[in-house]
């Protein structure tokens, strides 16, 4: 199996991202040209056939999502591209926004056509200010050339896209929170039901997909869903953009087919560990992802293997930690992140993070007790099982998996007095 591929990353650093001419020359908008003559149903069927799942982290089948969105009646529907990319260590959407922005809006246009929407938004995180400007610029170019606006490609299909900037909260990557934020409210998740597909932005039926998901769509309609589905494994179709960072020789964003192993990712693609150190563990999928020890890197990067080992794929981030990293110190930085980013709405996340942070401080200082260890486990579970949204539910993923794989590292931080009791 080839270790890296170029389907959605084909244009990276090959064309000028703001040049429509170069994008067209590289096969851009072929997907839309192929999709528009089809019926909405045919477009959705093709997406279903490709087998792709949402690349934002939840891995919900995209075709199914579109089918549901198309089935909801309403004269006004919204398509939103979630470009809030807030997971620490994740920068793959950034590559798409930076090097192939036309592909994103092409994907959104096909989605809008499929579900019957005429209004689109790209919610780009505040930190990507430069990319927001780039996106506004290429949207203008697309309108001027008939790829957006009224009568797209000479048909009656009409679709417009606006760029929206978040204010910088991690939780706004959660779809309902993102919508709250767009409505001018503070970023806190909404209660479901009603689901955003029924009542999303401004109470209108809304489809939200990730940047990468939208970028795959033009590929599917260029090479065909069957061809796309040839990549990957039976349950994980296609390719995935991953971002590797940490103690790695060649950090960066790479497109891989599902099914290569974590070892191959770290050593063959990433070039191995920096400074000839040994690999200690990986954190998969951002701050909210699991810790995978070096002993488990034979696992294949795909939904089925991950599920078997209770790992979530998350955003596509792979953080590499070498032998010098202390697990407790590492977890403390993860914990600080969640303490900062919890929206405060629900008890388990707000108060759980507060308490875990206190305990972590004791672990870092080396004066934790055996009880602290139990308290971590107990309240980590409360957060996981009872939190309102994914942030709180997954805030302890790293912690709970670390306790499983590196229990000794916790015990060495329990002070001597407590240890003897």
């Amino acid at each position: 199996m080839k270790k890296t591929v170029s389907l959605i990353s084909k244009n990276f650093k090959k064309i000028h991202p703001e040049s429509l001419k170069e994008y067209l020359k590289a096969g851009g908008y072929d997907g839309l040209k192929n999709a528009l003559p089809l019926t909405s149903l045919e477009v959705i069927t093709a997406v279903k056939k490709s087998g792709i799942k949402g690349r934002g982290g939840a891995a919900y089948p995209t075709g199914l999502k579109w089918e549901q969105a198309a089935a909801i009646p309403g004269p006004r529907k919204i398509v939103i591209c979630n470009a809030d990319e807030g997971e620490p260590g994740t920068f793959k959407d950034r590559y798409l926004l930076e090097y192939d922005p036309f592909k994103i809006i092409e994907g959104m246009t096909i989605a809008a056509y499929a579900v019957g929407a005429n209004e689109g938004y790209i919610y780009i995180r505040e930190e990507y200010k430069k990319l927001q400007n780039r996106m506004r610029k290429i949207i203008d170019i697309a309108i001027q050339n008939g790829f957006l606006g009224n009568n797209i490609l000479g048909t009656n299909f009409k679709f417009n896209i606006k760029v929206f900037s978040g204010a910088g909260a991690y939780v706004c990557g959660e779809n309902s929170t993102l919508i709250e934020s767009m409505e001018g409210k503070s970023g806190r998740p909404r209660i479901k039901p009603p689901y955003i597909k029924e009542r999303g932005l401004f109470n209108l039926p809304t489809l939200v997909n990730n940047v990468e998901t939208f970028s795959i769509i033009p590929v599917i309609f260029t090479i065909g869903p069957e061809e796309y589905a040839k990549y990957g494994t039976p349950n994980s179709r296609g390719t995935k953009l991953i971002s590797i960072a940490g103690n790695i020789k060649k950090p960066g964003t790479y497109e891989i087919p599902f099914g290569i192993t974590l070892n191959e990712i770290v050593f063959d693609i990433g070039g191995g560990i920096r400074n000839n150190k040994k690999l200690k563990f990986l954190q998969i999928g951002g701050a909210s992802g699991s810790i995978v020890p070096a002993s488990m890197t034979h696992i294949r990067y795909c939904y089925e293997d991950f599920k078997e080992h209770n790992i979530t794929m998350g955003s596509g981030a792979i953080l590499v930690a070498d032998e010098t990293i202390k697990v407790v110190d590492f977890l403390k930085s993860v914990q600080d992140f969640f303490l900062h980013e919890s929206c405060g709405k629900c008890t388990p996340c707000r108060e759980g993070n507060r308490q875990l942070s206190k305990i972590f401080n004791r672990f870092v200082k080396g004066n934790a007790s055996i009880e602290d260890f139990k308290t971590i486990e107990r309240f980590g579970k409360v957060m996981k099982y009872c939190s309102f949204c994914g942030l709180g539910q997954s805030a302890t993923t790293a912690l709970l998996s670390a306790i499983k794989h590196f229990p000794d590292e916790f015990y060495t931080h329990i002070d001597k007095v407590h240890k003897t009791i």
Partner: protein
Amino acid sequence: MKYCNVIIDNKEITVPEGTTILEAAKKININIPTLCYHPDLSIKANCRICSVEVKGKNKLVAACSTPIWDGAKIVTNSKLVRDMQKGVLELILANHPQDCLRCIRNGKCELQKLCEIFHISKSNLEDEVDALEVDSSSPSIVRDHRKCIKCNRCLEVCQESILSHAHRSIHYSITPAFERKLMDTLCVFCGQCSSVCPVGAIYEKDDTQKVWDAIHNKDKHVIVQIAPAVRVSIGDEFGMDAGKKVTGKLVAALRRIGFDKVFDTDFAADLTIMEESSELLYRIENGKTLPMITSCSPGWINFIEGNFEHLLKYLSTCKSPQQMFGAISKTYYPKIMNIDPSSIFTVSIMPCTAKKYEATRKEMNSSGFRDIDVVLTTREIARMIKSSCIDFEGIQEEEFDTPLGISTGAGVIFGATGGVMEAALRSVYEIATGMALNNLEFIGVRGLEGIKEASININGNTIKVAVAHGLDNAKKILEMIDKGKCDYTFIEIMCCPGGCIGGGGQPIGTTLEIKDKRIQSIYKVDEEMPIRKSHKNPAVLKLYEDFLGKPLGNLSHKLLHTNYNPKNKDYDFSQIYELN
């Protein structure tokens, strides 16, 4: 309707689609603990104490917000559920001051109740209570947000959207914009927030000590008036049936506490009707500003002063019954009793926190003395009765003192939305036409509908009237007036939903169902009264004959009428009231 078969704790039940797990469980007598949930408010699902297990799901779900589906298997009593619910509770508690014995809500706190249910003992968590300042800037409401558990109930009932969210994570708080103090906002002091708070984070400013001090002061002649809505609500505080009329017991209890005289705000309500009916007829006959809007509800007055200053001219200039009583208690009353007015200390017992603010308004001293010295809410007087060790339920009923305790059925219905209107119509009709009114009951203005209408024919002219309660409805009426699309002649507006029976100072735990019972009870009291029209109140007639002269006369004007001032939004409100 579609039905779903579900199994909760191995018990089968069939419920209509859309029923939540919480509601379904309740039907088979399974109580799931709740904290942010309130029967009359929207579902928030942010406390997470109602988390329960659903077979096949790898996370727990909130029972309050999860609608049931066909075939769902729910477990509410597993070890996991118990551990998790208890864990959530411990987390809340670790961030909550543990001074329950000194808390105003001791014994009535929903968090305390949960701790009892869960047998909470010492936990491994480190207590951390944020050192936040208590906001006691207003004369009505105190906010102690150290105790806030972020349930968001107050925010939802806040009629003026004064309260909102700020910050995130552990700094997340419910606060007025820019963390202003309540006194520096357009808060109307309705106190609805204080009546839904599950803990002691928002409460009425307690003035009971001032009253004790007055009672124990030999030089003070301490008199008390009881608002119409209190007699059908205070029984709740003593575990009696909701809506039960306990007027006689309350009178007896107040005498036992040590008040020198126990009077009735209903008397002043009758007086208000005399002035207000006359004002209405005067405005109609002389082509003055119409519609005329009632001015009994201080929350409503605060609202219009703060938001619709250009419409102040539509307000009746009548003081509220509370203040009219106060003015009479410092003039006519000492005269007939031959007491020095400076020794009189007037207390009101109100269902309302905004009344506390009203009593402190600068202009409420036309007699040369403060009209009212202290206002107590229903909750505060219940506290005084309890601390006097009175067996409220068993106490022998007693009668009000005369003459300021003589009243009519028209006075008592002031307590429910539509009551002032109905009382006014009874008098307006008879005064204007000189004919007797056959049907005293204006059913059209009764009940909990937001805006109600009625019309009455007076001397061949049909007069349209309207009744609104809750500030949302008040706003609709004001917007109609603003656009010139209002053909009402007379409008009653009450700040609190349901009127005074649903006031912010009423017993904790007031729900729509309870409000309804209080309303029914109030109308029953009216039915049973020998006199049901304000202008037939003999004590009021004597007051005019011996002292005031006639309605809208010079003395009436001085003592019983007032004026209104716009509240500039950037104005320092502490300048326009006097702390007593």
